[in-house]
């Protein structure tokens, strides 16, 4: 049982959605049948907001699901309605791009737990009439994927031609390929890992503590009090942002350059460009992101351990898979280093899965997967094209 609503984008920015002729079909579906969560609880009703691009073919065999990362959203290839920036993956997704919206029906959902139309901690709990806040259940990557699967049921898509995602999006790809094997023809986990490392959990904990230490967090009830923990969330974003870059990238971009001043001010102003940059990253982030969503989603990533779900043997997560995999890592990514991608590849080899694995040379750090990396795009293009051929989809 579902009810479909039209996008809730304000009218005054609809004209700006189109980037290079990319206009998404924006929708959201509310499911009244409960979602059974990994923590044993049930969530109902729940809404999944999504953007779609291109046309679904008659056989419904050309759908590609893009899974977004921690702070991403469904605006993968169109101008963002809040920030006005181009879609976060418009280099990869769009007409004539490696993931070609002229050929494929590309769907990107706002994840469960998110804050841009899908049900999350800022949504209204129908039981109380107020925002969930910390009464929202702790969700997992698997729950996010199961919610997406319900959307695919709703759209009548039995099998996705491909599921593609980087970072936390890559975790969703792996979970799709494990939980819904027969529904994934091709899987592209990028700059990701099959379990969240201790170091990554540690960084997330720093971020969460920054949010929680903000007096305006109000034990998670800030919405009821009409305030936002801006400072806490901003610091969380600043700390996290460092982990998305590399030392080389930071040095090349900022060095020790001063920000619009000839000398140090002997104060705690943002003297250095890198400080100014991080402060800007932090302050713009809070305009578009809910602090409790940040807590819940980072928790879901921390809990992610695909091997633990299968008796500590990662290969068991993929046993019986018929999907074609393309695993991608980047040399300077220290958040999800190549060895963690290699573990995925080893597990896939152990069940004789069809797997390609490339490591792309880049000094951009973890964020490389979002940037203009020609070798990466060539890899994705080649992989998608060969899979399309195997799937019997028309060539480019």
């Amino acid at each position, binding site marked *: 049982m579902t009810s479909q609503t039209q996008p809730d984008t304000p009218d005054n920015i609809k004209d700006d959605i189109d980037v290079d002729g990319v206009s998404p079909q924006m929708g959201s579906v509310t499911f009244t049948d409960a979602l059974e969560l990994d923590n044993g609880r049930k969530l109902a009703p729940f809404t999944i907001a999504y953007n779609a691009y291109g046309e679904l073919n008659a056989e419904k065999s050309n759908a590609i699901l893009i899974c977004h990362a921690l702070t991403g959203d469904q605006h993968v290839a169109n101008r963002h309605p809040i920030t006005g920036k181009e879609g976060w993956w418009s280099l990869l997704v769009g007409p004539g791009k490696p993931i070609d919206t002229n050929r494929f029906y590309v769907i990107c959902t706002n994840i469960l737990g998110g804050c841009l139309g899908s049900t999350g901690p800022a949504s209204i709990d129908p039981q109380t009439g107020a925002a969930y806040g910390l009464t929202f259940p702790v969700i997992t990557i698997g729950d996010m994927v199961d919610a997406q699967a319900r959307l695919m049921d709703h759209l009548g898509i039995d099998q996705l031609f491909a599921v593609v995602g980087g970072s936390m999006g890559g975790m969703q790809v792996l979970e799709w390929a494990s939980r819904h094997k027969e529904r994934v023809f091709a899987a592209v986990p990028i700059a990701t890992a099959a379990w969240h490392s201790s170091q990554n959990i540690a960084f997330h904990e720093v971020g969460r503590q920054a949010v929680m230490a903000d007096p305006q967090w109000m034990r998670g009830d800030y919405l009821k009090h009409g305030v936002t923990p801006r400072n806490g969330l901003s610091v969380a974003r600043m700390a996290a942002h460092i982990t998305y870059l590399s030392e080389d990238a930071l040095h090349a971009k900022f060095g020790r350059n001063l920000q619009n001043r000839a000398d140090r001010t002997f104060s705690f102003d943002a003297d250095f460009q890198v400080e100014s940059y991080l402060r800007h990253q932090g302050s713009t982030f809070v305009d578009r992101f809910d602090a409790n969503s940040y807590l819940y989603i980072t928790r879901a990533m921390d809990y992610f351990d695909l091997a633990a779900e299968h008796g500590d043997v990662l290969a068991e997560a993929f046993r019986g898979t018929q999907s*074609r995999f*393309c*695993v991608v890592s980047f040399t300077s990514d220290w958040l999800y280093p190549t060895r963690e991608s290699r573990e995925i*590849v*080893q597990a896939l*080899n*152990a*069940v*004789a899965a*069809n*797997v*390609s*694995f*490339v*490591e*792309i*040379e880049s000094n951009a750090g973890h964020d490389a997967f979002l940037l203009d990396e020609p*070798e990466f795009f*060539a*890899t994705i*293009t*080649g*992989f998608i*094209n*060969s899979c399309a*051929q195997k799937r019997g989809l028309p060539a480019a």
Partner: protein
Amino acid sequence: MLDRTKPSRSARQHHQHRVDHLLIAEMVAPGSRVLDVGCGDGALLQLLADTKAVDGRGVELSREKVNACVARGLSVIQGDADQDLDDYPDQAFDYAVLSLTIQATQRPRDVLVNLLRIGHRAIVSFPNFGHWMIRAELLFNGRMPQTANLPEPWYSSPDSHLCTIRDFVELCDVLDTVVEEAVAFNSAGRRLPIKKSLTLQNLLGEKAVFKLRRRKHV
């Protein structure tokens, strides 16, 4: 180590296939599953896909070559014959191919054992260090030979484990392996089938291709 060999420039320009690749393509059953260890630029995998509709996978050490292979639609991973074959389950492939690569591995014997474990058949090709020109170079000039198949000088060559056809046959015996088919190629690319006697092939063969299986396996 695995990117040891590639078609010569002229061969690639003319879209010709390497003679050993053509023979391997003959040895492989249509529609079978093939793992090409040290697949280089993917020429053999492409040939097998085009002519035998195989379900092919590759392992290659060079990152650039892996990325090029994947960009052309081949299923290839970055990896090392010495390190990464342990991951594969027993008998996962119909054929495990090692094409002009075994001499560049650190532990050829272990690699061969792994190939015979992973594939129902192993197909191995290697440059023959018993070729008369190599013997002559050593005998008359007293120097390590450099040939088309072994182009690097000794100090920068990746080929740490060179062998002759007779040496390889001996290793097959040690590993209790059945040689189902073996062919040497002379320098003109003509086939010299290897039967009981090895003397002539070991002298005239520039490289050799062996199709093997474990004796236990029927």
